[in-house]
Every structure is written in C-alpha cells, then in structure tokens.
C-alpha cells in the first residue's frame, strides 16, 4: 500500500476521519514507522496549539477587547483633532485608522481561532488546577502547564466512563495483545 497523504495523516492525528477510513489508514500507520512518526508530529503540533489556546486568560472577551481597542483609537484621533490640524503629515489619517483596524482584526481573529475549544471530555476535580480530560487519542491529566496522557490509539470502538467522584476511564480492545485494556486518570 502507498503511504497516506499528509492531509490524511493530519486528519488521523486530529481524529477527524470517518470510522472506516480511519480503520483502513490506521492499519497502515501502525505498521509504518515514517507515517506513525508523522502522525505523532501532527498530534504534538495540535496539542501545542491547544495548549497555547488554553494558556490564554479565560476571562478575555475578544469582542469587548476589540471594541475597547477601537474606542481607544477613536479617542486618540478625537484628541488629535482637538489640538488642531497638523501642518505636515506624510501618511493620511485614513490609512492610519485602516492599518490600526487591520492589526486589531488580525489580533482578534488569531485569538478567536486559537480560542476554539477542541471536542474533548473534561473533568475538573480534586485540587484546583487539576483537570482530567479525554479526546480521540487518550485520556489525560493536566496541571500547571504540565500533562500526562494515557494514549490508546485504538481505531475501534472505545467505551468512555465518567465517575462523579473524580475519575475518567476509557476501555478498548487491544488488537495486538487480544486483551481488553482499561485506562483511568484519577484526581487526588
């Protein structure tokens, strides 16, 4: 079989393929070192992006932030008008406003894009700051910017369980060992 395309590998890493296609490609990836490394690299990049998004202050309201920046720009322009016309300007004020607004838009759109949450199970339990979460690749424990994830890498059916006392579990059939394996993460 030829190697899957980079886009397919990225979709595998993101858990965004349909069940049959994922199963078919995953069989190749499991036995192909270069492809597996590629998927792991995509997965790591994806997680880094998510981590960066999570590190943004939770209380930031991007719409309000944009409005405040725009208001400050308008205030500055209005203040400039109060002190009278400037005799020599190399750039028209309209260009300044446009450039400022473009910068603001880039900032807002970048923030909005990074802030989109990835679908996942999230458990907040135990000590403040300890978060249990699950996504397509595994279940994990995150605390103070560090994390530990138990990965299952199963293309088949997985069973997720949540215990209200502070643990998450995933159950799957390991085709290599022929065993049922159950992963848990526990908040202390």
């Amino acid at each position, binding site marked *: 079989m030829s190697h899957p395309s980079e*886009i397919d590998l*990225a*979709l595998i*890493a*993101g858990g965004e393929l349909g069940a049959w296609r994922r199963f078919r490609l995953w069989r190749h990836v499991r036995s192909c070192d270069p492809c597996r490394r590629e998927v*792991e*690299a*995509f997965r*790591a*990049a*994806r*997680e*880094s*992006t998510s*981590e960066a998004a999570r590190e943004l202050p939770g209380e930031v309201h991007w719409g309000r932030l944009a409005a405040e920046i725009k208001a400050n720009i308008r205030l500055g322009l209005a203040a400039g008008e109060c002190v009278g016309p400037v005799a020599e300007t190399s750039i028209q004020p309209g260009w300044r406003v446009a450039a400022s607004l473009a910068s603001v838009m880039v900032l807002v759109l970048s923030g909005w894009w990074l802030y989109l949450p990835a*679908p*996942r*199970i*999230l*458990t*907040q*339990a*135990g000590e403040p700051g*300890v978060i*249990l979460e699950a996504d397509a690749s595994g*279940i994990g*424990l*995150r*605390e103070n*910017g*560090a*994390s*530990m*994830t*138990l*990965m*299952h890498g199963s293309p088949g*059916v997985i*069973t*997720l*369980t*949540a215990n*209200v*006392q*502070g643990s998450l579990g995933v*159950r799957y*059939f390991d085709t*290599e*060992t*022929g*065993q*049922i*394996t*159950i*992963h*848990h*993460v*526990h*908040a*202390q």
Partner: protein
Amino acid sequence: MRNKVAALIIMGALAAPAQEPFEALSSVKIQLPPDSPVALLSADWKQSRTAPRGGALILDLHTAVSLRNAGGRRIRGITLQVLAQEVTPGGRGSVTVPCLNVAPGDSFPIRIDLRLLRPLPAGAGPLVTVSLDGVLFEDLSFYGPNQLNLRRALTAWELEAQRDRRHLGAVLSAGGPAALQKELLAAIARQAERPRLDMRVARAGRATNFEAERTVEFAFLRFPDAPVEPVAGTARITGFEARSPRLEVMNRSGRAVRHLEIGWLLKDRQGREFLAGSVPAALALAPGQKSQVMEDSTSLRFTGRPGLGLAIDSITGYVSQVEFADGQIWIPSRASLSDPRLLRALSPSTEEERLIGIYKTKGLVAVVGELKKF
C-alpha cells in the same frame, strides 16, 4: 476546516520534532514489591522518544511490559499505577487488564502508551513510576495496596465475565456455533447503533450554558433480584447538563450493604437513550433500612459527535452494583439486562467486548476456543 488542516500541516512542519534518544533507566521506574505475585520479565522502550517543544519537553513512552505469574494461582486481572509525581502531583493514572486467564508460570504483556508534557528544565528523578496496584486471582482474592480503589471494579468485571461466559457457553451448547455467531453479531450491531458521546464532569456551579434549570424526577428500572431498590430520586437539568442527583434507596436484602452504584440512562430530545455513567456511593445500609444518596458537588455535561451539545430530556436510574458488608458483590443478571432499553443503551461487559474483539480479528473458531479455556 480545510484551512485549519492546512494550518496544522504548516505548524507541524515548522514544529518538526528534534527527537532525542530516550533514557529509560533515568526516566521510568518500575516498582514491584518483594512478595509480588508477578515478576517483571522485560520492558521494551525502543519506541519511546523525547522531544523539546519550546520551553517544554514531550516524552512519548511506548512499552510492552512483560510480566510473569510468579504465584500459585491463576490471575484474572491486574492494575498498574502510573504516577508522574514531579509532572502532575495532583493526580495519577492506571492501566488495568481484566478478563485474564494467566496460569502460574505463564507470562503476559501489558501495553503502556504514555505522553508527558513538562516544563524544562527536567528534574533529576524518574519522570514516571509504574507500580503494582493490585492483582485479582481466580478465587476472587486480591493482592496489592489498592490505592486507586479498583479492587471492587476488578471483582465486578470478573463476575460479569463469569456470567457472560456462562451465557455464551449455554448459547453454544444449545444452538451450536451458528447460534453463538448470531449472538455476537447482535451485540456488534447494538454496539454500532449506540451514540458516540463525550462527557464532562465538573464541580457544581461551573455550568456554562444559560438555559433555565429544572428538576426532573428519576424513572427507575427495577430488577427483581436486586438487593437494593431505588425508591425515589430527582436531578437538576440545565440544557446539556444533569447535576445534583438525590436518590432514596432501600435495602430489601437480609444483608448489610456498604457500597452501591446507580447507573444513569439519559434520554435526549430526539428520543435516543444512552448510559451516562454511574453514581457510586459508600453507605452503611442495614437490612430493610432506607438511605439517601446525594452528590451535590458535581455535574455531568454531554456532548455528541462532533462536539455539539446533547439536550437532556429525562433520566432513568438502575442499580448496577452492590457491595455487601462482607465484601461480596452483586451484579445484575443477564435476564435483568435483557430489558430492551438496557440492551440498547449499555455497553457490553468487558468479557463480551473481549470476545467480540476476538471474533472480529480471529473469527468464530477462536471465540469457541476462548470459551472452552475457562
């Protein structure tokens, strides 16, 4: 979506990992007590890698630990505790393999695929400690510190395995391989029809939607042979969230009960029903006594694939597990679980899932062989 994938590809290319050799001895420690009923044969770390990511270090640990049954009894289940004390001191992980049938002297593998992300610089000690948390034997006796409190779960899984092997064995005896195949195919079909969900469990007060909260009365599925009967119950529902379950239960057996689990079946506004999880409760319930089960501090939030909230309409509860004061455990019978609603909503037991997996990968003959091993 396509733009995001493209962006991911570019970022992935830019952040191509500068992988470094993995030093297993300094990064991972496997601890087995001196009187452990299992002995470590080998641990292959060849697939493991470390890679710096900005100011952090990613450690991808892939190993198949090979263990040998060094005791005199067959092993039915095992739990290894995975602790990254320096990285995530507030929690721990575990890897459990139930439904084993390991004779004395035989060896068996346990796969551990672990990823650690930790800020640099790294400390001096091992990043990960893998230790034995418990071993369940064929006579349901247990060895180990049970720090993760999984002994009860291991025992219940083994009881379910015995129950389902008996059931499938009876099907095989009565109708031959064709009947067994029909039973397995029906279980696979049910598995395929079950909705794929994500869940979120959070402390109360962290609800993130704005719908008005309402109180919903529990409906109950009552099993004739259950030692504990749910009498009444309510939960509060807000859009995609259910929280603050309050249940009244009565011990109708002649034995004291010290622990029970109530399973939750939720129905969404499209009429689909699914198992939401369970509410465990430690209590001291004398014969004939009633007691309240409350869990005010948590909420369950449900998300369908791909990431859309799942609006909850109603809740049904059922007693899924009871532990008596003497440590014996009750689980529902196959007859109780044959209720059509439960059949549709519940996942198969661990053993049924194992046999389905064997059927899918090795075929019917292998399943028949497995049933004859026990």
